[in-house]
């Protein structure tokens, strides 16, 4: 190599490394997808919530045990009739544009969620009748009916507060430059490339924020995402693969944070959605029970996920306080499956049109299910369907069994009501049972786990027998980061919170 060229390269390398050392501390986070619009009212995606965790604070937050803890609000109190919720706010909080985060701002933000055109928060806040400013640091929510999951809703996007001034000016373009009250403020976004945030100087909890900048980079390919972490291009990645855990643990420079997801993976059965529900699988609970009995949840976990995930049979994982211990996760029982099929008198093999949204892992799970149920007398025809198409086909009842994933909600209501109550939006199989309806509605009006869990137990009993949704397993949220990231704590919702995290 010519000396000049050599010198030039050396100089460039030096400049690059020197520049990095002198620059402010920037944490680079690899996302699995490109988030959608960054407007708390209009946003829909899980990955977007990861960005919001650094950008927009909420009235309340959750801790490791799923307890509601204060964030922008300090406390909440529900009236005896359950129809009034009074919220005390944290004093002295400022939005990124310097505007005060007070009761008027809370009223504005909540009303924006409830009335804005195209807002996805509207159903989440549908129990709220009106929002009243009591004093500058107190708001009162008047409810149409008692609704205990409301506070849990306020720990997520529905509880995110936006600067009224900025939001009024930007209208539906707010998402292009969101102004909230989170630890970091918006700097720039290049679609499919990066989202850059920088430290909010007036943040109420700034003593616990140790980064000057956060850069989110969507890297879809999981292998490449991990490669970026290994080569030091990224400091933290979300959604590592279960099959890569071994490699991450073996690498002394990497650390893994994991927690069982709030959601579940399961199979929705078409009970009464058009003609496809009129088959033996849809009509006879025994056939569905046979299908379930033929499945080895532990083996699925071992084969597809190296045994890293958690087999499950309910809408919440066995680690959740709401898990019903009276219904433990069953093992495989092919004989029972065969017996049930015999009792039901169906002609063997029972063909099942199994719609599977496309994805490498779901596909693999489907193939294993196909092989397992074949031994009991089912002939499962897998139909891998691109996600957008699968949504409309599920809606139209164009399936007998549908592999469905749910990201999960903090409150058990979010994992059950819209799936099992009659004519609810996620009830693709059109399952409808008045008793279940009544129980799920009753649980909504009661406060506290002691009061609600027994109600859910009754509903669980009916649903286990009817088998309208076959629950399979709960993923783990797998966050891998470099060993220089210190003090990272993983909350059960899987989001990445940077409070208290720093570089060593």
């Amino acid at each position, binding site marked *: 190599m010519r000396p000049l060229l050599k010198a030039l390269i050396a100089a460039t390398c030096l400049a690059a490394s020197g520049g990095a050392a002198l620059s402010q501390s920037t944490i680079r986070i690899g996302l699995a997808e490109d988030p959608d619009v960054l407007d708390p009212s209009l946003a829909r995606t899980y990955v977007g919530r990861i960005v919001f965790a650094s950008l927009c604070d909420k009235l309340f937050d959750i801790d490791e045990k799923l307890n509601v803890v204060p964030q922008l609000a300090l406390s909440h109190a529900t009236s005896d009739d359950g129809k009034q919720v009074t919220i005390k706010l944290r004093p002295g909080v400022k939005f990124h544009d310097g505007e005060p985060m007070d009761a008027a701002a809370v009223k504005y933000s909540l009303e924006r969620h409830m009335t804005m055109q195209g807002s996805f928060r509207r159903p989440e806040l549908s129990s709220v009748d009106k929002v009243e400013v009591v004093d500058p640091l107190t708001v009162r929510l008047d409810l149409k009916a008692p609704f205990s999951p409301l506070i849990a809703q306020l720990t997520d996007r529905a509880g995110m507060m936006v600067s009224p001034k900025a939001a009024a000016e930007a209208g539906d373009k707010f998402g292009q430059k969101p102004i909230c009250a989170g630890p970091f403020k918006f700097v720039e976004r290049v679609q499919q490339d990066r989202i850059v945030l920088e430290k909010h100087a007036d943040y109420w909890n700034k003593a616990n924020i140790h980064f000057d900048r956060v850069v989110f980079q969507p890297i879809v*390919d999981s292998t490449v995402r991990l490669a970026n972490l290994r080569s030091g291009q990224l400091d933290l990645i979300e959604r590592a693969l279960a099959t890569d855990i071994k490699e991450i643990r073996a690498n002394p420079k990497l650390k893994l944070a994991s927690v069982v997801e709030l959601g579940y993976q399961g199979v929705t059965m078409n009970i009464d959605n058009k003609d496809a529900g009129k088959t033996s699988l849809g009509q006879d609970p025994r056939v569905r029970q046979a299908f379930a009995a033929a499945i080895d949840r532990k083996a699925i976990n071992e084969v597809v996920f190296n045994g890293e995930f958690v087999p499950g049979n309910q809408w919440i994982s066995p680690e959740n306080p709401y898990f019903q211990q009276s219904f433990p996760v069953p093992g495989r029982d092919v004989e029972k499956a065969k017996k049930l099929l015999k009792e039901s008198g169906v002609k063997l093999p029972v063909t099942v049109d199994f719609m599977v949204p496309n994805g490498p892992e779901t596909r693999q799970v489907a193939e*294993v299910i196909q092989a397992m149920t074949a031994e009991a007398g089912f002939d499962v025809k897998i139909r891998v369907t691109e996600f957008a198409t699968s949504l409309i086909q599920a809606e139209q009842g164009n399936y007998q069994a549908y592999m469905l994933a749910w990201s999960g909600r903090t409150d058990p209501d979010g994992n059950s009501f819209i799936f099992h109550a009659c004519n609810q939006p996620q009830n693709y199989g059109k399952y409808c049972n008045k008793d279940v309806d009544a129980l799920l509605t009753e649980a909504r009006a009661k406060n506290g786990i002691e009061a609600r869990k027994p109600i859910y137990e009754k509903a669980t009993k009916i649903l286990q027998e009817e088998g309208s949704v076959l629950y399979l397993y709960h993923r783990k949220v797998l966050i891998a980061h470099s060993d220089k990231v210190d003090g990272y704590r993983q909350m059960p919702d899987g989001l990445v919170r940077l409070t208290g995290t720093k570089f060593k």
Partner: protein
Amino acid sequence: MTAVPVNAVQSVPDAIESPGRRAWRRLKARKSALFGLVVIVLLVIMAVFAPQIAPYDPIKQSWTLVRKAPSAAYWFGTDEVGRDLLSRIIFGARASLSAGVISVGIAILAGVPLGLLAGYAGGWVDGVIGRLTDAMLAVPFLILAIALAAFLGPSLGNAMIAIGVTATPIFVRLTRGQTLSVKNEDYVEAARAVGNPPIRIAVRHILPNILPALMVQATLTIATAIIAEASLSFLGLGQQPPLPSWGSMLNSAQRFLSNAPWMAVWPGLAIFITVISFNLLGDGLRDALDPRSK
């Protein structure tokens, strides 16, 4: 080349040799083309007699043998649900070869007549076909294929149709260009002068002349089609599980490139060998069919 004594008596003079015979003689003389042909024939035999050749059932899973490296029992190793990769490669030849050949067949059946029509008729017919072809070529291949495959529904057959339709404009354009260049040659003029109908002229006089170019394009497109099936199955629009295609095998291997690299090696190699064989054969055919060359 090994010295083969040329038997002057058996060698037929060029003048009375039929074009097919001549092509075959020339093809035989090209070792690389012959190699391609032999490999393709072997692949076809493998696909047809897959049940007899494969050591295991290609869809039989063994959950205790997931992602095992190649061994004496499983020469190519096992896949992500414990199936024998060798058997899946052998059965996968069915899907992948037909994806290549049938979709190109569709493209030729649709594209060549349209190209002949455009080139021969000229005028507004040519204009409309030409602009439509340009427009289709300008829309990204994968987008067209995705839309068609999603519309038709996920299956291997529909993926072939989608790939075939998307590959059609290439053949229209090629045929039209070749038709234009031979249309005014003396022998075509002569055939027209003696009152041959256009279809007869097209089939008897124009088609043979454009065959070499068509062959080369077809072999190249077969390669593209096999890889396109891989892309479509990546999106869930190709071969449906549990049946294998090389493309879908390659795609499921992607997640395991670092901890089970053999899963990607075999389907990659299979695609590579197939594509290379079609290309070598295509090269040989072009030379063999070219009436101008010796």
